[in-house]
């Protein structure tokens, strides 16, 4: 039974990372109807920036905060420079721009920091003052920090002027424009926030999967699966979906024969099944499209 709880708690920890990345994906999806295929690579790049701060001798928390802030600015700039020109272009063009972005970030990261695997320190103390056989100190920190991030984002979108304006811009761009919201800048802000949240995901997962330019491709697939399972129209749902996927992934790996080798196939299966049978996801709204 201990094994079961260990698996579940570790699943919640890794699921927290998926939740962060899924949240980033959904934030952009809500505002612009895009799936950002480069979200994983953006998070990877942010983590490497934190790594660079560390090599300059910065303390790990400062490195993380610095990288998250830089990612926010970079996300904003990416939206302004790269994404804005294809805002009204056909879907294919937008997907290709994301793929281009993915190629650039992946290869530039490999060029600057090389494709070797590097260790990355945990943000959290190795000892929280109590000891548990069920969950490691890093995992406790990951779950706790993710919950704080989720709460902060909820409060931001619920109670601040900017958060409300961003929701308005996403929900009804025309009306938002009429009441004086700069929709275009709200989109850029959404990209910045998504990049920041993604960066948190990257920094939290790096001590577990180690740091290399390809570290996020699996994580991004799980995050997509989580976002779809929870519902792409609901940030809360996407975060829950990420957590559920993390736990399921561990259970399948342990209890289903061959499961540990087919974890990515499992994520693919979840994506296809959700899209086929419940495209709105568990917590999502069914969107009716008028033709």
């Amino acid at each position: 039974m201990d094994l079961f709880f260990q698996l579940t708690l570790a699943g919640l920890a890794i699921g927290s990372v998926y939740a962060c990345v899924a949240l980033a994906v959904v934030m952009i999806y809500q505002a612009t109807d895009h799936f950002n295929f480069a979200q994983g690579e953006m998070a990877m790049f942010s983590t490497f920036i934190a790594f660079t701060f560390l090599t300059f001798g910065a303390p790990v928390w400062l490195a993380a905060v610095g990288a998250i802030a830089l990612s926010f600015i970079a996300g904003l700039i990416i939206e302004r420079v790269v994404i804005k020109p294809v805002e009204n272009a056909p879907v294919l063009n937008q997907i290709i721009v994301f793929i281009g972005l993915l190629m650039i970030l992946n290869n530039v990261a490999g060029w600057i920091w090389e494709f070797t695997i590097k260790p990355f320190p945990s943000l959290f103390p190795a000892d929280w003052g109590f000891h548990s056989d069920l969950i490691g100190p890093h995992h406790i920190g990951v779950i706790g920090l993710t919950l704080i991030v989720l709460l902060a984002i909820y409060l931001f979108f619920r109670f601040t002027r900017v958060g409300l304006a961003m929701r308005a811009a996403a929900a009804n761009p025309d009306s938002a424009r009429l009441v004086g919201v700069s929709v275009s800048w709200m989109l850029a802000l959404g990209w910045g926030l998504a990049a920041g949240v993604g960066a948190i995901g990257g920094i939290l997962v790096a001590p577990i999967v180690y740091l290399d330019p390809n570290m996020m491709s699996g994580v991004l697939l799980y995050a997509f699966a989580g976002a779809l399972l929870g519902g792409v129209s609901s940030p809360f749902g996407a975060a829950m979906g990420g957590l559920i996927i993390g736990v399921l992934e561990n259970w399948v790996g342990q209890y289903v024969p061959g499961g540990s080798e087919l974890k990515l196939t499992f994520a693919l299966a979840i994506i296809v099944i959700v899209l086929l049978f419940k495209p709105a996801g568990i917590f999502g709204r069914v969107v009716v499209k008028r033709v």
Partner: protein
Amino acid sequence: MTRPNRITPALLIGFLAAVGFAVILPHLVSNFTTYQLTLAMSWGVAMLGLNVLTGYNGQFSIGHSAFFAAGAYGAAIMIEHAGWGPYEAIAAAAGFSFIFGFLFGLPALRLEGLYLALATFGLAVATPQLLKFDAFEDWTGGVQGIFVPKPAPLLEGLSADQSLYYVALAIMVFLMVITWCILHSRSGRAMMAIRDNPIAARTMGINLPLVKTTTFGISAMFAGIGGALFTYSSEFVSPDAFNFFIAVYILVGSVIGGIVSIPGAIFGGLFVVFMPHVAEDVSNIYTFIPPPWAVFGVFLILVIYFVPFGIWGGIERLAAWTKRKMAG
């Protein structure tokens, strides 16, 4: 320019001249260049498949590496375990990847645009892991992969590379002609009608599910044939060779060549094989230039901004412009 061209004398002469040039080319260049050209054609065949699917039918795939792998492994397994010859094995690879594509197209039917891209993205990311899976190891060779000998020359006096080049050329030309015929048939018009307006297409009595899944199957089949040719020239298949970036290369080649075109696939194949070498040479001299694929990422985005019709679309526009000027 969303429809394929009619046959004009100029187009026919150009086509025959291009084929003629391709036939004598291996005798003008080194064996290694011939080998590279064969690789370019195997990519090109896969890109032709993606052009049919995305350019003419409007379905997205960023997972064509999976079908490329299906063809490569299909051929390798038939040679290794069933003792088939390399050319029959191409047919097996084609059939295998058609079925795989058709079956994946079934659930994909219900997925529109972005979601289909997402599902195929998942397929591409999961492919290497599936190929390594223990239960299939007796067939796929697991992490080790399978060694595939280069087919012996068909004619005396040709090297193995030249022989394979001619096989690839014959297949490529054949598939391009077939594609042209399909696109000019009733089925082809149905494919394009679905791309342009699915609801109107359905109203016209087009069987949407059938046309879409069949197109997916054909597209996967082309990718599979490309994969088989790729395997013969590289003499080896292994799981990690078919990662997500293979799907990206296919997409990049299609877009740069011109995704709504047939001949664009040739340019796409040549681009993917030769440009990295050129770019590498440049970045070896000027070390501040980032590595080739990062530069191509930038290039890809610029192509989408300014010339989304790609190289062949550009040639067509140039030809039309010259014609207008000549007419006064």
